[in-house]
């Protein structure tokens, strides 16, 4: 994947030099291993700061709206789907954004890798499908495929669905017999066990709202948890309040979530917040044949009326 970075830099330099865009939004190298940081490049000289590797797990569509003038953005498959969603939901105009598409071979699960070590990771590098990770105590050579983020494992849109230019040739998309085995496991639990599962999932949540703030869908001017008149939900660590936040946020993403995994990527506690949204994605697919962010001309299913709606009550 790092071979496409040359092309990304070339394209970015060209766009900035010709004045076609005000800035290019991409990823910069982090200050610690396995970290990258979103950056806005405004001059040709700075394009060398751009990187693209398996640790770019955040979703740059989150930075696309609210920018002045035309911008260019580096987009993986999932970023591009959220740009489509942004266009459909009028967060950004199509002619305001220049999409540099990057075929993605998946991002790595940093928590899973960190758990292999007794001490802290001091170096991370990758060579194709091989990851080389070191701490003071040991160096491990890992197969990237074994350490993909949960959402990348089930991703069927690695290639950008909307782009102005591609930084590399498309990669092969995987065809999954069952795209939701993780949801099936939770669905199979009985009611009590299911409740226990979700209680356990959120037990270490510190309500920092990193999941919400990393999510391109969460652009409400004031989130319901931040409303104070009326106040919908308590702000403390009361279990009911914590869960209310997670449940309602997930439902607010129903039919809109692209399963980009930015929420999980951002969570400091390593909570798999996707367990909430995945069920809604499954329902969207099964009930409406819908996957979010694939078509700029279609509105999400819960936002549109169709005479073919499977439920009778609405007819």
């Amino acid at each position, binding site marked *: 994947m790092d071979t496409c970075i040359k092309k990304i830099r070339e394209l970015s330099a060209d766009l900035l030099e010709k004045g076609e865009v005000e800035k290019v939004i991409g990823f910069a190298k982090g200050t610690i291993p396995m970290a990258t940081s979103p950056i806005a490049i405004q001059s040709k000289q700075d394009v060398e700061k751009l990187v693209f590797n398996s640790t770019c797990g955040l979703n740059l569509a989150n930075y696309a709206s609210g920018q002045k003038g035309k911008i260019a953005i580096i987009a993986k498959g999932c970023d591009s789907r959220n740009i489509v969603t942004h266009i459909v939901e009028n967060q950004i105009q199509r002619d305001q954004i220049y999409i540099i598409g990057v075929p993605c071979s998946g991002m790595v699960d940093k928590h899973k890798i960190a758990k292999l070590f007794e001490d802290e990771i001091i170096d991370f590098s990758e060579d194709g499908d091989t990851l080389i990770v070191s701490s003071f105590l040991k160096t491990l050579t890992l197969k990237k495929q074994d350490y993909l983020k949960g959402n990348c494992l089930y991703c069927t849109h690695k290639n950008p669905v909307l782009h102005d230019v591609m930084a590399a040739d498309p990669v092969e998309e995987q065809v999954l017999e069952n795209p939701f085995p993780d949801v099936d496991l939770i669905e199979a639990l009985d009611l009590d066990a299911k409740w226990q599962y979700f209680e356990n999932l959120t037990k270490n949540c510190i309500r920092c709202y*990193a999941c919400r703030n990393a999510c391109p869908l969460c652009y409400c001017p004031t989130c319901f948890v931040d409303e104070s008149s009326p106040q919908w939900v308590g702000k403390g660590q009361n279990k009911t309040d914590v869960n209310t936040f997670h449940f309602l946020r997930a439902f607010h993403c129903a039919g809109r979530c692209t399963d980009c995994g930015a929420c999980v990527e951002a969570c400091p506690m*390593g909570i798999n917040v996707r367990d909430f949204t995945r069920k809604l994605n499954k329902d969207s697919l099964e009930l409406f044949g819908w996957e979010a962010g694939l078509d700029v001309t279609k509105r999400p299913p819960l936002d549109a009326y169709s005479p073919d709606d499977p439920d009778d009550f609405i007819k």
Partner: protein
Amino acid sequence: MKFITIDKNDWTQGIDKSRDTYQLFGPVTDENGCQIKKLDTNVQPEMEYHESIMSAKSILFPQTEKILHASLNESIEDHHIMKRAENSYTPRAVLGIRPYDAKAMEILNLNFDTKEFSDPYWCDAYEATTFIGLGINKPGPFDFSTSLGTGPFCEDGLDILLADIDDKYLAKVLTPKGEAYSSACGFDDTADEKESQVLFDILRKEAEKNITSHVETDKLKEKTILELHEAPFWDDIAFSCINCGTCTYVCPTCWCFDIQDETKQKEAARYRNWDTCMSPLFTRHATGHNPRASKVQRVRQRFMHKLKYFLDKYDQGIMCVGCGRCVKSCPVNIDIREVCLTMNNFEQTTSEPKE
């Protein structure tokens, strides 16, 4: 100074004995990682942990704490009268705390216990707590504590400092509270003072040698607040920030809180919850006006408070102990070491005078 040798085989038995009089807290790991938590009677502290996501501050300053309560039942004489919540302040001991986390407690104490105001909830909890630190033999790559007046074997804020020496702990008992705790454990194998101190010095020097991460803060004091406030770098620093509360919540020295009243049937309670200057709600006025309405203003506030306002107000260094938690946990890798460097090295250009 008194030193005690503790055989690791006697450790569990000793601290179990102390449970009769102390509520114990210590590092425990679950599927989300290691945290310093209250230890149930059958749970032992994991002394060999290498990092805890959250600091120990929640032991004295919980994320959510009931501080007052009242009855709304009007048939009771003192209905609607707020009274202090009955929290327990029986002796507590925190085991295996990092020395920089204990230093952070001293910083928090500067804020919660001042000449003008004493926060009763903090002060009572602080008074009740004994801090048993564990020296860090092998500091991690993101530990920059030695730049900030603390370090892997710093004694500030601790009642006992333990050194991990193979099959035993060597304990340096620093305060009467520490003395009381070691007696409660039945640890009484006194070690030679001179020899022990030499050993501590060697361990400290070895550990400090392993610290490769540093920050410079020497020029922050001489700069004016306005100079830094108006500096041109804040937009770049803030660009990637998603304005979550992670940095402030994982920080052992962030102390801001919010007060919330909640009622349930005939019971009313006042809670204080951790708050974060990263949230727009932190400063939104009842009128709707928000003096820190933009992201860049909020990011600037966090760093200005830690690296400039605090320094100017207390003259006791910056409000950071170099634990590196915010660097590691920030979803977008905003690095306080870099921000500190940028602020410290910033020179206002005189060719562009501000109006």
